[in-house]
């Protein structure tokens, strides 16, 4: 009760009577109180965030815009018509659809939009993606990742969005779904031999299964990166156990996967990614 109710008049009168005494008392209190240094915050506008993602070509730009607006129906229509015109499906994916979804994820990180917008743009990307994939046909995947949500946690929105993006990037995702017990995760890793495994957790009470899984993997002699993500974890948490790497979003997830194909160790990858935050 910092400003107790009914305080105004009584305190005001007292202050008016003897301001000097009160000012000296507050300076005394201030001397005891530690003042933390101010953190520097870099603020970018929404336009600045969108710019590096925006394609140059007009036709691609239109699709990009529809994805950022989260309009699945029009995105699909335009992608179909572009494919008919002969636009390369890979260009549509890599220059319009994927950057659109990634840009909205960045806007979310910066506080310009919320989860509904991210879901809608990811939906729009997928609507276009299925036609592009059909046009390309079966291609060789870049590698596998096993994804799961922590045991006891049923929040899988974040995992689903990252899954869509990684699939669009050409990775095969083995999705174990929400609330997965540790032994199921280890079993899936042994069966599928992925580049990396990921676990997401929103509820802090559920994240303690991650160090457990990491240990079980190590006991099996597996030393692939264990990407942890979601609201309940951070960099410090990931550094508490071997294999742990904290990913803020899909971007870092992809860096981990790419780094594994470049034969980097989890230790080096962790160092690289954690120092980028």
């Amino acid at each position: 009760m910092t400003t107790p109710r009914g305080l105004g008049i009584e305190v005001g009168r007292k202050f008016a009577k003897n301001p000097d005494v009160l000012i000296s008392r507050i300076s005394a209190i201030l001397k005891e109180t530690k003042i933390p240094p101010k953190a520097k915050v870099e603020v970018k506008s929404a336009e600045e965030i969108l710019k590096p993602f925006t394609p140059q070509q007009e036709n691609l730009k239109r699709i990009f815009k529809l994805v950022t607006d989260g309009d699945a129906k029009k995105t699909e229509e335009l992608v179909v018509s572009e494919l008919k015109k002969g636009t390369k499906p890979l260009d549509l994916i890599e220059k319009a659809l994927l950057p659109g979804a990634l840009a909205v994820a960045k806007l979310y990180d910066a506080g310009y939009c919320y989860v509904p917008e991210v879901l809608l743009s990811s939906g729009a990307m997928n609507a276009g993606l299925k036609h592009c994939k059909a046009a390309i046909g079966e291609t060789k995947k870049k590698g596998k990742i096993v994804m799961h949500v922590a045991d006891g946690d049923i929040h899988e929105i974040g995992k689903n969005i990252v899954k869509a993006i990684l699939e669009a990037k050409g990775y095969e995702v083995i999705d174990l779904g929400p609330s997965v017990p540790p032994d199921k995760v280890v079993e899936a890793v042994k069966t599928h031999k992925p580049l990396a495994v990921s676990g997401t957790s929103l509820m802090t009470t559920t994240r303690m299964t991650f160090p457990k899984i990491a240990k079980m993997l190590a006991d099996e002699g597996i030393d692939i990166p264990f990407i942890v993500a979601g609201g309940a974890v951070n960099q410090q948490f990931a550094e508490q156990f071997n294999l742990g790497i904290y990913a803020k979003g899909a971007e870092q997830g992809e860096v981990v996967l790419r780094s594994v194909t470049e034969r980097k160790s989890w230790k080096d990858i962790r160092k690289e990614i954690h120092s980028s935050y």
Partner: protein
Amino acid sequence: MVGEMPPKKRVFSALMGGRVDRIPAIALSNFCVELMDAAGVSWPDCQTKSEEMAKLQAARYEVYGLDSLCSHNDLVSEAEPLGAKISLGKRDRHLSVASKVFGDKEPKDVSMPDKILGKGRLPMIERVVEILSERYGDVLPIFRMITGPMTVAGHAFGIERVLEWSKTNPDKFQAALNFMADLDVEIMRESMRHGADILYMPDPSASGDLLSPEAFKEFLVPTYRKITGKLGGIPTFLHICGHTGKFLELIPETGFDGFSFEVPGVSVEETKSAVGDRISLIGSVQTLNTLLGGTPETVRKESLQQMLEGVDLLCPACGLPNYTPNKNVIAMVEAAKEYEIPTSVDEKMEEFLRGIAIGISKKG
């Protein structure tokens, strides 16, 4: 001082912004293994049998020494009678919803099941309220915990769909919320007949991490007003986890008497300066760092600091983690007893100046 108050009076008064002898200490959930042991109850009985549940709930007072009791602790008892399958969890894991209720159906295609109050866990919970009210109702307030409309809508229709509707189809979104608001009101009215005094409404999915302030203002605020306006003026409070900073200005408009917020998602100072005296503040001793991971002394220090900064009811920031030691919750209660609310002009002045000092130091 207004003399030693019975806890019931203390909690009512603090929630409604009135005089208190000291700040009351309450808790949201108490699903803790050490408390189960102290209360002499076993799992799963303490989640499935009224008599055992009542014992665990009474331990809030008997073991922790808190100023309030509560009906139960799960977020699934509203979705279950609509048809959700629930998982009972474990001794150290909360109950959860295992399947959404309505599949791909839309709000216009669904109707309230007949005699819904007789379904699922609801009758069992009402029996707990009855037992607590009979045994403790003269001295302690009985909270009825009812999951908020946004969270139950997520359980019923799927949270991703509900969130998308908030952008693409306002009518569907509002219809889903209205449906759940009606259910919540019906449950609370029934529970008041069994002896519940205060509505405690957790709505974790209405978080600032998921929804925009615009959507909160346009849809959630009127939905909450609808609920709080239909309960005959009993005290009510809302809990939302995580980052609620952008909603704070709107919270007093919901019609709830108290708001339970979560540090570190928002700070006490930020919350107090946004809502002022328009709503009572409930919180917000950090659950992981302090109550689970800290010592009685760190709990005491944080509690005292938060009361100084402006919380009206001292409470953990969110549900207690399963392995919270009893002694840490007891330390929180002791801190509430230790903290003296200033009464003389001099004391108030001292506190006022301290408030300025805290404000300046945090501004940096």
